[in-house]
């Protein structure tokens, strides 16, 4: 999010009675993490911008100048500032956290992640009505955000309010999907699933051919669509994903081997490995 202009010098704040160093522009959550203070989160991920939707990271914030007023703020979005006094375990904080987890447990009773977090906060069982036909989606929105920032925005949030869900256009296979699995990997509860058999990968109701190794023909962990996306849209060099890992390793080993031989022969000039690879 935005940088708060505080100059560049690090400063200190207090978290749970501890002096903690923070840097201008960072959020309270980052500073706490560095200081080894754990704040639970569900919708935050280093690969995407903070979003503030799960409300689990709420902490109680005050300053001496605020005359006793304390506010509950999401640590993932609240900019660190000098002299903040932060509590991560106050009664109000825990009350919100417990309720959030209780609510999520009613939404996703089968999620082991939610079960564990809830249990850690003393919630063994939800005290609310369990959703009919529950799934594992907690609507943290990480999948949508990662797809937007790292891939093609093939999925989105659909509808609103209590009917909100993560979905694809018209519920069908998303035309823009490149099968990169970013969404599945980032999903904290395992709601987004995929399958891989031989050289095909299936996700979101679509099936993708995997890119094959230019040398041995083995399937690479990347789809054809993904490869062309990376080349065309992210301007990566196609050579990054033309070989499988073992062929790549072998090629590297050979290069180094040759290099060593050359060096032994007292030659200082490096042979052009790329050219050699290209010849084959």
């Amino acid at each position, binding site marked *: 999010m935005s940088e708060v202009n505080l100059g560049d010098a690090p400063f200190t704040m207090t978290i749970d009675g501890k002096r903690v160093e923070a840097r201008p522009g960072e959020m309270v959550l980052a500073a706490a993490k560095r200081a080894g203070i754990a704040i639970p989160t569900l919708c935050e991920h280093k690969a995407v911008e903070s979003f503030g939707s799960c409300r689990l990271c709420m902490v109680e914030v005050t300053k001496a100048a605020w005359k006793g007023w304390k506010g509950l703020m999401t640590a993932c979005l609240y900019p660190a500032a000098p002299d903040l006094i932060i509590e991560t375990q106050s009664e109000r904080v825990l009350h919100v956290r417990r309720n959030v987890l209780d609510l999520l447990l009613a939404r996703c009773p089968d999620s082991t992640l939610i079960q564990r977090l809830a249990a850690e906060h003393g919630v063994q069982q939800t005290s609310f009505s369990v959703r009919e036909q529950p799934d594992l989606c907690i609507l943290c929105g990480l999948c949508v955000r990662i797809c937007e920032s790292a891939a093609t925005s093939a999925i989105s*949030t659909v509808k609103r309010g209590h009917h909100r869900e993560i979905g694809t256009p018209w519920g069908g296979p998303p035309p823009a999907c490149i099968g990169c699995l970013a969404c599945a990997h980032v999903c904290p509860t395992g709601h987004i699933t995929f399958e891989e058999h031989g050289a095909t990968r299936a996700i979101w109701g679509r099936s993708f051919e995997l890119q094959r190794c230019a040398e041995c023909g083995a399937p690479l962990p990347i789809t054809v669509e993904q490869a062309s996306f990376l080349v065309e849209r992210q301007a990566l060099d196609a050579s990054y994903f033309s070989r499988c890992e073992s062929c790549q390793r072998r090629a590297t080993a050979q290069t180094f081997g040759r290099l060593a031989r050359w060096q032994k022969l007292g030659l200082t000039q490096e042979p052009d490995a790329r050219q050699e690879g290209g010849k084959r």
Partner: protein
Amino acid sequence: MAETAQARFASVEAFLRHAALLKTSPEATQRRVLVCLGTGCMASGAREVAAALERALAALPAERRVALNLCMKKTGCHGFCEKGPLVVLWPEATFYKGVKPKDVPELVERGIVGGEVIERLLYVDPKTGKPVEKYGAIDFYARQTRIAMRNIGLMDPANLDDYLLRDGYQALAKVLAGWSPEQVLKEIEQAKLRGRGGGGFDAGRKWRSCKSAKGTPRYLICNGDEGDPGAFMDRSLMEGDPHGVIEGMAIAAFALETREGTIYVRQEYPLAVEHLERAIADARARGLLGERILGTDFSFDIQIARGGGAFVCGESSALMRSVEGKVGEPRAKYVHATDKGLWDKPTVLNNVETFVNVPRIVEKGAAWYASIGTARSKGTKAFALTGKVKNTGLVEVEMGTSLREIIFGAGGGMLVDGPKGAFKAVQTGGPSGGCLPESLLDLPVDFDSLTDAGSMMGSGGMIVMDHSTCMVDVARYFLSFLTDESCGKCVPCREGLYQMYRILSRIAEGQGTEADLAKIEDLSQAVAVGSLCALGKSGPTPVLSTLRYFRHEYEAHIKEKRCPAGVCKALITYSIDTSACDGCGACLAACASDAITGTPKKGETFQINTLQCDKCGACAAVCKRGAVAIS
């Protein structure tokens, strides 16, 4: 009156000359037949009345017309929608209500040409039973102080010259004639104008912080989303005085030194869009908007953004996302919109009514404005008074006026006689507000007192409820509204309000327990502090306020399995009181579930088959003899 065809005002002086000239023109002295074409009156057939009037006036012999020096104006909402269609003769201020096309010949012949008063079309004071002739003598209007709504109903909103005749754009001209932006800022600060969109945030302070934020361009937005159900002040302002909104924005833009303004109008208000578009075009054509306004260095223009039908888009950050063409999801406010708003640029967003107050402040001075109202809430506030009161409509009163004065003064008291019709509660602040009981009727209405009482000013909806309204049902109604209208981004609001709704539904169905009340209060706290935006944060207010003041009603549902108001379907049964029934059969035709049996012709009485009855209440609504009993 082809005002659009007239030229741009090349300078402030040229504008002032024209305005002065207008006032001495024949038009200024014309007698006016003001026909309300607000949405309310239109729904009651005002369009047909206006057409009939137009025809009848046109049919008068030419010399008569000239002698009468008459013009007809289609105006915005007079505010007294319930009594529509309304026709007012001006300047004599004769007020005719409930005018039908068939009344028009008499109205023209006797009323307009003959100068008589047509008694049967007059408003009858419910207290005295006597007809009232003059507009200003009617309680509903007499008890109002109109600043924001000063022009509505008295002019044609589509006519720029009409606005000029009512001193329109004088404030803008005054500012452009020599004020500095700083001077305008100071004036608004000193007037202590607080935002009318709900939060009551100090407008001057908002403008100031935007102005001191880094980054350009700055943006100005007018919030015309008016999503609170039961509120329609902004609608009537945008429809009935669009130039007032534009002038207020232009002055704000001058203070903020910004060139771009947007009015975000609710999707359900097509007429507001139409009038605003017309007014913007007219103002542009006359050099009151656009490049080099009135020949000065100040340039400013306005575009209209139509909402998509989402209550949450009234929330400032969601609104800005919507203007950007995205879904209306709020953002955390740790960085203010005045720093990073629309397109991440410093932005000021104010409510329609807030802007409309601006020209008046500039014109009459901050000191004048600050002399009206209470210590911390200055000026007036427009309310949409609806529900079970006699006079429903728009009421603008000085801040600090008591609820009683509004409801029983301007509002004329309760609609229905008898114990069922007695006052029970007034709901203010829409889905973010609460229900206040009789004991608080003397509460002076301003931003802080309502908040302290556990409700909220909100944008100005004021819904009066009598004993046929169930408070559990009202709370449940708001929760069902909010679960639908929440954007669904954050957990406490999306899941929490939904669970609150489930609990309240249980209670309404007679399945509630006392533990449910404790649960709902506990959850309310978490939702109120845990939600991301004010929709979720204030979402529990309707529940908390009804729990605070009407807990006994919840308890009746829980302990006695009884709905005292006779609303909650699961707890009531319908039956026919055979002694009152005259066998007319209206209920039979009304029932969609075929639950009513019996053939009175054969000497049988009507019966309601309780198994078949889905308790829709249609029979009770049609029965003229009140023979359908609810227990």
